């Protein structure tokens, strides 16, 4: 059983977007084309044995074969835990973790995004951090002799304004997370 479809039975490269790999390179996945498919990344990935269908080498291949819709639309690309093990063992500096981030960025631009993320943008814009630090928190700190902390949204609101605007527009399209029925990626 799989929530992560393999895609069509036959991949037709005439219907593929062969410029996709260039797009990913420009979005931050600079080492993408170095890959020659050795599979070391997949061998060291801690997610692969626990999530069906998740396979770094496979994802890279799909990108190289121009499968834009398939890759960006899948929940799979969001499963990377950013542990960097793949990058450590790659013999060709492919930096799959960075490619993962680039794919996530592109997915967000295309309107796919997990529901929790826009909320985080909001939190940072308001507090400059994910957990507001107010009186209550500072009292607890003071009891232990720790100096107070301050949440300051100001700078972050302006620095993240562009991103918030981009998300505001695209956020209406439900991402793969909402479409999923059932539990996590087992």
């Amino acid at each position, binding site marked *: 059983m799989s929530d992560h479809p393999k895609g069509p039975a036959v991949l037709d490269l005439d219907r593929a977007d062969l410029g996709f790999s260039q797009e990913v390179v420009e*979005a*931050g996945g600079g080492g993408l084309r170095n890959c020659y498919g050795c599979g070391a990344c997949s061998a060291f990935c*801690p*997610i692969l044995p*626990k*999530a069906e269908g998740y396979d770094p080498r496979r994802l890279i291949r799909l990108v190289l074969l121009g499968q834009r819709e398939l890759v960006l639309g899948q929940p799979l690309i*969001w*499963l990377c*835990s*950013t*542990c*960097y*093990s793949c*990058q*450590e063992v790659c013999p060709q500096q492919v930096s799959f*973790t960075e490619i993962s*981030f*680039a794919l*996530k*960025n592109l997915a*967000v631009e295309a309107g796919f*995004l*997990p529901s*929790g*993320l826009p909320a*985080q*943008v909001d939190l*940072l814009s308001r*507090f*400059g*951090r*994910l*957990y507001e*630090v107010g009186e209550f*928190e500072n009292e*607890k*700190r003071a009891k*232990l*002799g*720790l*100096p107070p*902390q*301050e*949440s*300051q949204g*100001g*700078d*972050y609101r*302006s*620095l*993240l304004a*562009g*991103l918030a605007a*981009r*998300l505001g527009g695209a956020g209406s399209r439900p991402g793969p*997370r909402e479409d999923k029925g059932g*539990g*996590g*990626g*087992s």
Partner: protein
Amino acid sequence: MRAAFYPGCTVPVRNLNYELASRRVAEKLGLELVDEPRFQCCGFPMKSLSIEDALTLAGRNLALGGGLGLDLVTLCSACAGTLAEAAHELDRNEELRERVNQRLKGIGLKYEPGRKVFHFVRYLVEEVGWERLEAAVERPLKGFGFVPHYGCHYLKPSEVMERFDDPQRPRTLHRLIELTGARAVEDGRAPGCCGGGLLGSEEELANLLSADRLLAAERAGADGLALICPFCNVMLEGQQKKINKSLELDLRVPIFFLPQLLGLAMGFSPSELGFKLNRIKNKELVEAFEDGT
């Protein structure tokens, strides 16, 4: 020695024991941690949305450190990783630096290359040094054994971290545990990921990753896991109950922060190190060192 203390989002609110123990240990070792109230989120959560925006947020914090003329020291591995990577990128890529500085200009800041970021533990090992650490130990934690949990961002990407410890077979935390007089217990697993980055979106998957580590630690007969990251704490301590429930396990692995163990060995009492806030306790350890005995 002076360094700018970078708190991050999580530690100052959810892991006061970690912060407390670290500050005490730092003081004892002669390291002055300078607070900068304007430090805010390192940008890690934003990376999935926009790499460059995340870099910009990191750059802001680095610029603040620059303003103090100090290197940054942090307790959170994810922050250390994010900030170190940002410094690495901004130092190498001039165009990127210009774009980021263009945006930082609007808030009155500028990033100058050369800002160094350390995880607190790396700072202890590299800057404070083993000699001084050894000299500070007053009562060894004899008879106890802990599994060091390195996590991911403390060591990797190794290029950014200047390979200060081997990403496949790291030793620094092992040595620190041994320095306290305790045993560094091998649980037979390679340094692994706790899954913390996925907790928000894939709880079950994250639980599976942490479960592996907890099981291995328990099987190895350790007195607990020694951590150096609040995310790892959220998973390995915070999620233990849920993991037990959903995977039908009966785990009970005490969780500590490494500076707490260092602090005990240096003569602080458990309450001075925030042990009350540790949620899964090891009674023996606490009782053995209560009130300076």
